[in-house]
């Protein structure tokens, strides 16, 4: 214990050495309580100077150039993709069923890995939602194309491990109607 010669009051040892740290801690805590949270109020993102002035003419120029090209196909585009996808699936299935195909190179000559790589690397311009919209599971059962039956508990286990939010599974209509 230290003694103050003039006042004869004592302070605990190390009191003044640790005073600054304790004070700063207290200020930090009070700050956090005032704001109600330790989450920062801003997130630190910035934009290039003049960006918001440039973006309007850029968007308007794209509208003018894209208008004539895109509008005629607009309403039917998805339908065409859908038809193409269904046709491709049927062709694929028929070529599997009729192995007596006289073509020199048959579907069987392709390794599964090559087919998977094709679907993986080719941009089909269709999301899985769009494919799901045109090919319903009633027409093609999953078990038709799998070696082993897909049991319910396997599906549940998969969903449990891989899906964060069950609401994400709901198909959303993004037709903006």
């Amino acid at each position: 214990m230290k003694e103050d010669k003039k006042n004869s009051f004592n302070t605990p040892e190390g009191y003044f050495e640790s005073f600054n740290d304790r004070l700063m801690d207290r200020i930090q805590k009070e700050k956090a309580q005032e704001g109600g949270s330790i989450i920062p109020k801003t997130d630190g993102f910035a934009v290039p100077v003049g960006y918001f002035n440039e973006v309007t003419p850029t968007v308007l120029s794209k509208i003018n150039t894209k208008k004539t090209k895109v509008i005629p196909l607009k309403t039917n585009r998805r339908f065409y993709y859908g038809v193409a996808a269904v046709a491709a699936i049927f062709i694929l299935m028929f070529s599997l069923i009729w192995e007596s195909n006289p073509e020199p190179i048959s579907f069987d000559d392709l390794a599964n890995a090559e087919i998977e790589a094709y679907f993986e690397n080719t941009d089909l311009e269709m999301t899985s939602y769009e494919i799901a919209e045109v090919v319903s599971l009633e027409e093609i059962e999953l078990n038709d194309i799998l070696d082993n039956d897909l049991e319910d508990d396997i599906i549940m286990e998969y969903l449990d491990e891989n899906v964060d939010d069950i609401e994400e599974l709901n198909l959303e209509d993004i037709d903006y109607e």
Partner: protein
Amino acid sequence: MIAEETLVQELQQEESRAKAFEVLVNTYKERLYWHIRRIVLDHDDTDDVLQNTFIKVYRNIEKFKGDSKLYSWMYRIATNESLTFLKQKSRKMGISDQELKDRMVENLQADVYFEGDEIQLKLQKALATLPDKQKLVFTMKYFQEMKYTDISEALDTSVGALKASYHLAVKKIETYLKEN
């Protein structure tokens, strides 16, 4: 500022569409930019998605029936465009959605248009751990200061569910910031 109903009417008429669309872009570009930026994080990606959003708005404006507010409808398009963009990006890179989110946050450290300090970087790391919907609700409420009713229209989710999501997101972020 022009009334929303008048703007919608002008947008849906061929002769006034071009001029009204310019007004629309000028009115909403900043708000939509910040909404998209907080999802895709990178400025250049945000610019792409913002332009696509406005192009989609232009092409679909005739279908807009006024059941919701125009700007909620545009937020919905912007959200869908942003999430689709990220899904396509992760598919092209051959990585999972979560891996992409982690990389996006890592890239912020070298991003010249990110001026955040350590705590703001930690905040982005915390946000990357949240499910998409919780993250959206949090940024729309906390940073964009939107009303629950407007977020409800934009995300097509009940106000009650949004409040629960927001509360949960705040708790998770606070816990992350305290533990890391």
